[in-house]
């Protein structure tokens, strides 16, 4: 059985209202996660009796202000601190704000770096006496 994947687009301005609606409807906050694309994507996931709903916010860069939802779902403070420490996202009014000290990482906001471009060429391992070629 394939679980339904319901993705709904939203904006930072509409986020608190949407999340409050999910809370009022009895949804559980499942997770908040970010993805580095050309900009950033943030997914807020909710569940009610195995019904799975996601809200997606697209940002041009990580300086844009995102309101914290920890006032609606208190447990969100962990996810929001994680997003700040790994992606450098600018989340305002987190209920418990670790100010960048949630994770002890060697490089701040390491996940905000763009992933390397996909490899197109693959080097062929040379064997003795053969000319090195690329495929």
């Amino acid at each position, binding site marked *: *059985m*394939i*679980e339904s*994947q319901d*993705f709904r687009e939203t904006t930072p301005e509409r986020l608190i209202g949407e999340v409050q609606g999910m809370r009022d409807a*009895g949804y*559980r*906050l*499942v*997770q908040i*996660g*970010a*993805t*580095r*694309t050309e900009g950033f994507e943030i*997914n807020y*996931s909710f569940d009610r*009796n*195995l019904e*799975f709903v*996601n809200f997606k916010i697209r940002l041009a860069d990580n300086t844009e202000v995102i309101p914290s939802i920890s006032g609606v*779902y*208190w*447990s969100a*403070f*962990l996810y929001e601190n994680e997003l700040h*420490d790994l992606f450098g996202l600018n989340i305002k009014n987190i209920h*418990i704000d*670790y100010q960048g*000290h*949630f*994770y*002890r*990482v060697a490089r701040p906001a*390491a*996940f905000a770096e763009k*992933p*390397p471009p*996909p*490899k197109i060429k693959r080097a062929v391992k040379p064997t003795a006496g053969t000319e090195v070629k690329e495929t």
Partner: protein
Amino acid sequence: MRTIIPFGPQHPVLPEPIHLDLVVEDETVVDVIPSIGFIHRGLEKLVEKKDFQEFVYVAERICGICSFIHGMTYCHGVEQLMKIEVPPRAHYLRTVWSELSRIHSHLLWLGLIADAFGFESLFMHSWRLREKVLDIIEATTGGRVIFGSCKIGGVRRDIENGTLREIAAKLRDYAVEYKDLGNVFLNDLTVKRRLCGVGVLSGPDALGLGSVGPMLRASGVAQDMRLLKYAAYGGIDFAPVTAEEGDSYARCAVRIGEIFQSVEIIRQCSEKIPGGAIEIKVTGLPEGEFYARTEQPRGEVIYYIKANGTKNLERLRVRTPTFANIPPMLKIMTGCQLADVPVLVLTIDPCISCTER
């Protein structure tokens, strides 16, 4: 007078590092501030450099206890993205190994909680029984903790039908010992005094704080990701084990109940497993995004997989059950006695290695 007592990251009751600042008034904890991140490994970032088929090995190493289910969840997510039809026999084998993982994880937890409340012989007895399950796992996969048997498109190893029936029979015999063990946890007066009424979490609080797994089910919420019918769970007859009290005793009772449930699921699998192939050849590259959700011993785990049609995934995000159970842990610790802190930390069955993937 308020005092702040640091708890962890090095503490006899903690197998892995988490730090808690306990704000206490006399012997009562009035506030708790958690701190993690001591062993963050950045495995999610590694997905940008590893081939998506090779990454199964890394996913399995996110956790040292529920390693198989990590690998299976990753495979499940990629298979859904690529619309791969996994052979039914592979689904059943995955279910068997998942349930063996659940039994050994819960027995491990029973040992740890016994150790936390000072019942050393019960701790050793629990782990003695766990060894027998690890022996079955070793005999069927070659590994005790890292199975290495799951791959995208199926599984690497088969278990003969006769062997599977023998395993089910063995577990039925072990269940007699599990029952004796469970009786001590559930009926012994001193154990009950350490668990009953300690760390009560109501159903609405458990849902509101995002609890998962036994933590949620012990508060009366019958939510179990196996009801999503991934792997072979669609063909298995089972219902989530729940309890109503929401205290440490209820969480213990749910885990003990799930051990017997896993034995029963493996018995059903041994009877219903179909013949046929155990894997199919995987061609093509994944593209799109998918949330894979499965039930680990500690609760719901989530793998978010985003792929762009290359051999490297664009993003892998893992939300582990322990991460979700930290806020409820803070809730149940507020107002508790200082002496109950080790028991309450353990009742969420913390796996910091998972959390700091």
